[in-house]
């Protein structure tokens, strides 16, 4: 018998894996028939809304809910904060109201009698000295707002700086952004006796039920979590939030199902953000352009905890022989951070590969050559090297390159190009699978996973169908319930490897069992069998149809369970490297930056679905364009409020703002053989630095802080 080995077919030999396959749930999504937590609407559902703090820092002085309870249509009112309690950021939940209609809940909120003693606040996250000098209290005591996070040293920076040919000093920064999930955080809760059924907007279907246990005094086994679709998460939806608990309490109190999703402003204020980072950098190279020394100190805020960007990403990807990096966290009265797609990496890239690009300009070396000269300092020179070559061709770098600000042309609009590199782990999470081959030949794969937009259902079905030699329509995928086999949360680019690995192995094992049954029945050697085109074959001879083979399993389905992937199975891998290049057109009179083109060359290992993989990269580029050019949280120092907490003033790109996007996967055979690697995070990391470098190339000066708004561009030009 031929060796039965878990693994993927050689490159180019899969029938469905690696192909462009439409989403199985695409028509449901596109026609609005897909039901999200926010669409859960069984008859009798009450609508809940929150009263939140309008102050960044205050003590709750008085709260009277009596009048609110008497409002027409209001069914329950619960306090989420106590009198005397300090609130530490705008949007802090105070009261939750459930009513027969959303407008009645609004009426109820207006009837709440509430008073605050306002306390002094600090929200100016870029102002390190201001934070050190700020006079604010915490629980009545004077608060210290800054804390040194770490200093890490390697080599001898002082000596290296003395010997260096070129030394560049600069300031760089990237402002806080929010996740801005279009479906806000929240849930629909319904009690069935002692059982709680929750439709939760979550990236973590299998891991959230337990979070109801303590606050509600309920058994975890009595909690059912359902999430068939989630309207964006980006790292912010791993937990059950206090408003989800309030929703369940309101449902308990009223005996009716309750839906509570945050409104847009509250969503932006309290449901997660990406920490800001601002850095003073010194970087130096020798006469050849080899980076020899790095020194940086960066600061920023993640809200009330006072952390910030991890110092390990400074400098990003490049690690010179001599370096010092230190970081200071600032406690602010801003909403708390949550993991944002590739935590730390986009900020690290934007604060350091800009400085490296400035050093290249100072040394008078083409940015591409400069990055290439220093690849030995990176983690993946053998990947970045060829990727840079490919990207340069796709961008036509050699033709378009000009020294900074020397692009020529008489008009106000200047063009420029820039590049950046990124890396990410993306190893698989731990997921279990149940796989059934029914006697009628249909296949069912069940996992407690979720689809955050990646196309989880489609990728699972592709792998199972491919393994059995069936069309994708023969496979039914069940995900989105914590009652299914436990699966990992969807974060950190772990899902596609995490779900397809166990599916592949378990499908192969099921197929081998069916081969054995068919071999006995049809008197052929099981080792010669293969499954293709809905048939079983012995060599190139037809043995039976798939249905006949499946019928051999008996009156009940062949059912297999599979655990998470292991490293030695070689179904999955981790650690990718990507290269991005940007081309921009900057109007030096208006300060407006327009995207002309972005090129992304990405290593991804074995691609499951080429169409969806390309969507991931396109989406990441567009998210990158957003935080590079227009998107930022703006805090008002005077009031401590997030003054653009709405989709009008918090500017995201529209369909006409993205320019041309070119996505190329780097997939030589040795990369394919690594197996599946996650793709969600990596391509969102480099756009900030690549676009900033392109703008510097266009206008001849560095615009230090992202996003590169017209005002910042004009300020930089004026200062030059």
């Amino acid at each position, binding site marked *: 018998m031929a060796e039965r080995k878990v693994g993927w077919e050689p490159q180019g030999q899969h029938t469905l894996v690696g192909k462009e396959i439409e989403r199985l749930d695409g*028509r449901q999504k596109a026609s*609005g028939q*897909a039901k999200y937590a926010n669409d859960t609407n069984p008859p009798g559902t009450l609508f809940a809304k929150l009263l939140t703090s309008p102050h960044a820092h205050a003590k709750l002085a008085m709260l009277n809910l009596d009048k609110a309870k008497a409002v027409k249509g209001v069914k329950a009112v619960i306090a989420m904060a106590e009198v005397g309690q300090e609130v530490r950021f705008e949007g802090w939940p105070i009261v939750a109201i459930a009513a027969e209609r959303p407008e009645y809940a609004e009426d109820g909120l207006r009837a709440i009698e509430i008073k605050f003693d306002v306390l002094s606040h600090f929200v100016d996250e870029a102002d390190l000295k201001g934070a050190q000098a700020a006079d604010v209290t915490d629980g009545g005591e004077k608060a210290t707002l800054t804390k040194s996070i770490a200093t890490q040293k390697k080599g001898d920076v002082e000596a290296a700086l003395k010997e260096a040919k070129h030394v560049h000093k600069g300031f760089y920064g990237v402002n806080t952004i929010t996740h801005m999930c279009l*479906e806000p955080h929240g849930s629909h809760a319904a009690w069935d006796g002692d059982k709680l059924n929750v439709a939760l907007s979550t990236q973590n279907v299998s891991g959230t039920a337990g979070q109801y246990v303590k606050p509600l005094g309920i058994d975890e086994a009595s909690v059912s979590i359902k999430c068939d679709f989630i309207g964006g998460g980006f790292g912010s939806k791993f937990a059950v939030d206090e408003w989800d608990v309030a929703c369940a309490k309101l449902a308990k109190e009223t005996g009716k199902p309750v839906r509570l999703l945050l409104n847009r402003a509250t969503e932006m204020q309290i449901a997660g953000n990406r920490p800001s980072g601002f850095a003073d950098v010194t970087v130096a190279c020798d006469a050849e352009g080899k980076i020899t020394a790095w020194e940086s100190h960066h600061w920023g805020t993640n809200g009330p905890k006072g952390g910030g960007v991890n110092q390990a990403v400074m400098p990003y990807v490049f690690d010179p022989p001599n370096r010092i990096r230190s970081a200071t966290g600032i406690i602010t009265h801003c909403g708390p951070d949550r993991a944002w797609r590739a935590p730390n990496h986009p900020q690290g890239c934007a604060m350091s590969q800009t400085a490296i690009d400035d050093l290249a300009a100072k040394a008078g070396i083409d940015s591409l050559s400069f990055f290439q000269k220093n690849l030995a300092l990176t983690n993946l020179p053998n990947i970045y090297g060829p990727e840079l070559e490919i990207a340069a061709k796709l961008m036509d770098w050699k033709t378009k390159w000009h020294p900074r600000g020397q692009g020529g042309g008489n008009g106000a609009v200047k063009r420029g190009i820039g590049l950046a590199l990124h890396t990410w782990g993306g190893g698989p999470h731990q997921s279990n699978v149940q796989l059934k081959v029914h006697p009628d030949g249909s296949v069912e794969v069940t996992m407690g996973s979720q689809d955050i937009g990646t196309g989880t259902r489609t990728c699972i079905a592709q792998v199972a169908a491919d393994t059995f030699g069936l069309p994708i329509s023969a496979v039914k995928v069940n995900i989105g319930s914590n009652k299914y086999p436990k699966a990992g949360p969807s974060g950190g680019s772990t899902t596609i490897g995490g779900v397809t690995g166990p599916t592949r192995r378990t499908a192969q094992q099921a197929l081998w069992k069916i081969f054995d049954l068919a071999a006995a029945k049809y008197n052929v050697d099981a080792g010669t069998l293969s499954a293709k085109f809905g048939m079983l074959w012995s060599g190139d001879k037809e043995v039976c149809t798939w249905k006949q083979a499946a019928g051999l399993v008996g009156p009940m389905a062949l059912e297999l369970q599979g655990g998470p992937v292991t490293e030695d199975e070689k179904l999955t891998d981790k650690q990718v490297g990507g290269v991005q290049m940007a081309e921009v057109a900057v109007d030096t009179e208006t300060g*407006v930056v327009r995207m002309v083109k972005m090129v992304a060359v990405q290593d991804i290992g074995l691609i499951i679905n080429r169409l969806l993989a390309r969507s991931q990269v396109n989406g990441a580029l567009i998210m990158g364009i957003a935080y590079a050019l227009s998107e930022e949280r703006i805090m008002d120092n005077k009031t401590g409020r997030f003054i653009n907490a709405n*989709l009008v003033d918090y500017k995201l790109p*529209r369909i*006409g703002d993205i320019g041309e996007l070119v996505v190329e996967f780097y997939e030589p055979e040795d990369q394919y053989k690594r197996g599946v690697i996650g793709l969600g995070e990596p391509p969102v990391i480099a756009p900030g630095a690549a676009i900033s470098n392109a703008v510097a190339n266009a206008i001849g000066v560095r615009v230090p802080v992202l996003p590169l708004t017209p005002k910042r561009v*004009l300020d930089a030009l004026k200062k030059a």
Partner: protein
Amino acid sequence: MDRDPVNRTDPSNRPEPPGRTSPEFNRRDFLRGSGAAVAATALATAIHEQQAAAQQQTAKVVSAAPQAITLNVNGEDKKLNVEPRVTLMDALRNDLNLTGCKDVCDRSNCGACTVLIDGKPVYSCTRFAIEVVGQKIVTSESLHSPAKTDDVVNAFCKHDGMQCGFCTPGFVMAVRGYCNQNPKATVDDCRKGLGGNICRCGTYDGVLKAAFETAQTAKGGA
């Protein structure tokens, strides 16, 4: 920021734009530092004309009490009882369980709640339910059934103009309405005409391809 036309350091050789009426003000000065680049495409949509027209309507006084109304949705008359303050979006979502129009921005800005009213794309959060009595309302749900799937839905699937899918039905309706009104639209037309919808996952590339393809097969007429 320097908005003072006297002190600003413009190149003096810049030609006077044609049609400039005031020496105090021009478009570039207005755009200067205003962040208008991102907003610019949003202005191009027909939805804004709709909104303006709606504001021109003669004001009518109605009671604040719930009103019994009939809405024509997806070709069927639906009876409901809503206060005048209830938006079409809330009535569709909460009373008729047609949740394809999504409640996202609360500011008439993102397009996730787009439906067709008498063939034209409209943000359903900008209309009161009682305001659209007698008009033909079409929601995304009508574009797909076991019997028939609209071209626009198929095009969104083919080009993967979606990820999480939350903005998608609104985008689908905007594309359906735009292509009805602009058959044979070019890619560039679509870029300008579909600026009224926001996607966070970044699906614009697929949406643009889907819109162009839909426009080529659109028959025209609302």
